[in-house]
């Protein structure tokens, strides 16, 4: 990765984003949930981050806000990645959906919703994807016990 591109991007975005830093060769932007859609729109249209790679969350129980939603984008033109982080509270774990911008957001947001209960406002289809219909809770939250079982079909004894 060329550090030149990273620094240019950092300078261009630092004015709008409070916290921009380079960590392990990747530009990391920390922003408020309300700014997310605007920044992603700029990343896509002006800075050519055309590939939406990944969305996941990190659960930090005891901290407020509790959930950190982490996005990764890749620019096939600049060949760099950028990571976006935003914090959402436990009471209203909601962010704007990126479905209007990227098709791949459909499935990846469904997975994040499954695992952490993050609500992506604007994603029309948040049905379970890796879990099954009627699963109670969100297994990757730290307060979901690892050994808890909820079989869909009763075990044969």
């Amino acid at each position: 990765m060329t550090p030149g591109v990273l620094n240019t991007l950092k300078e261009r975005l630092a004015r709008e984003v409070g916290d921009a830093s380079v960590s392990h060769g990747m530009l990391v932007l920390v922003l408020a949930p309300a700014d997310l859609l605007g920044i992603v729109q700029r990343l896509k249209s002006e800075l050519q981050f055309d590939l939406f790679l990944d969305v996941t969350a990190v659960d930090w129980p005891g901290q407020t806000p509790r959930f950190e939603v982490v996005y990764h984008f890749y620019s096939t033109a600049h060949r760099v990645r950028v990571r976006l982080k935003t914090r959402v509270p436990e009471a209203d774990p909601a962010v704007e959906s990126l479905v209007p911008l990227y098709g791949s957001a459909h499935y990846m947001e469904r997975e994040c919703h499954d695992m952490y209960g993050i609500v992506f406002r604007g994603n029309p289809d948040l049905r379970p994807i890796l879990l099954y219909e009627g699963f109670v809770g969100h297994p990757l939250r730290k307060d979901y016990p690892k050994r808890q079982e909820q079989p869909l079909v009763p075990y044969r004894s």
Partner: protein
Amino acid sequence: MDVKLPNPVRSAFEKTERDDTVIVNIGPSHPATHGTIQIIAELDGENVVRADVHCGYLHRGFEKECESHTWHNLIPYVDRLNYCSGLINDFAYCEAVEELMGIQLTPRCKVLRTLLSEYSRIADHLTCIAASLMELGAMTAFLYLIMIRDFIYEHLADLTGARVTYTYGRIGGLARDLPPGWLSRLEEILGEYEIFVGRVHGLMDRNRIFIDRTRDVGVISTADAINWGFTGPILRSTGAPRDLRKDTPYLAYAELDFEVPVGIKGDNYDRYYVRMREMDESVHMIRQLVDMLPEGPINVDDRRCTLPEKRLVYTEIESLINHFKLIMEGPQVPAGDAYVAHEAPNGELGFYIVSTGTGTPYKVHVRAPSFVHMGGVHRLMEGYQLADIIPTFGSVNMIGGECDR
């Protein structure tokens, strides 16, 4: 048993859009679904109008399980993500941890990891092409390709002790060095590869039946492929030369001479051909890597992750304690997060790891190419015939282990 069992999925559409179409369920357990995937399709005659793809039948809580083992203990587990090329998963995961720890690999380890990654890529592509050709009835091509794959599996078993799930990567190095004679057998297998893949080219490339089933079927444009998150051979088959080995070189790829094969229209035939050409490039790379393989240690000299020599563990108290700490508490990875991506045979395989400074990961997230591809695969099916789902699905090479985690 007359108990009505609950349905694990809720279809995106219960009713047909028109009154002359029908809804058909395909899978999850079907020989052509490669693992377990369910496709609910609305058909107009033979044509697929809409498709709703469900995965998750192989979900086993990989990411949850990772949070209660040491960093080292996860290596056998990441093997089972893409079980056709377990070594690439090993190396990508280890590199993510090494990135956080700030470890530089030894030159020999770097070259060996690159060599084994390319070797695994051949095995993975062979599996994918063989299976999708067999589903079209090409049994001879299947047997030729699977035979070479089995040579590779047996050869990797000589090195690692296992045919499929190798557990060969280590944080900061590899489990063991090459056994004697391994490289000469490697050259023999590459020779066999060239003979038999040449025959498959002869059997398939200009085969009327094969072309009719794959040309202009499952077409996707570059812009659509990027929008739907496709990476790897699927993106390259549309004509975009995007390959992480060239674009963001890691391991020893910057020192190698290789081409990035691309397709012309992004259909099933292009995906077949891109994979065939990529295997040739891998062979070319392996030969360069064998020539440049340096002597020296394969593990870094770093107490934080490398186990001390067994001889020292039995004779010195410092090494005994070091060994005990590494096994019982795990390598202490500095707090922080890192995302490391390798070009896996199917596309971008990324590991996003979060550490709080202990011997156990706080979070491990896998950006599995197969899972993202399943989000866009309906685009390759809609508008084509029901029977086209089979070659299309074969050319996407969904791997249940990494898709469902």
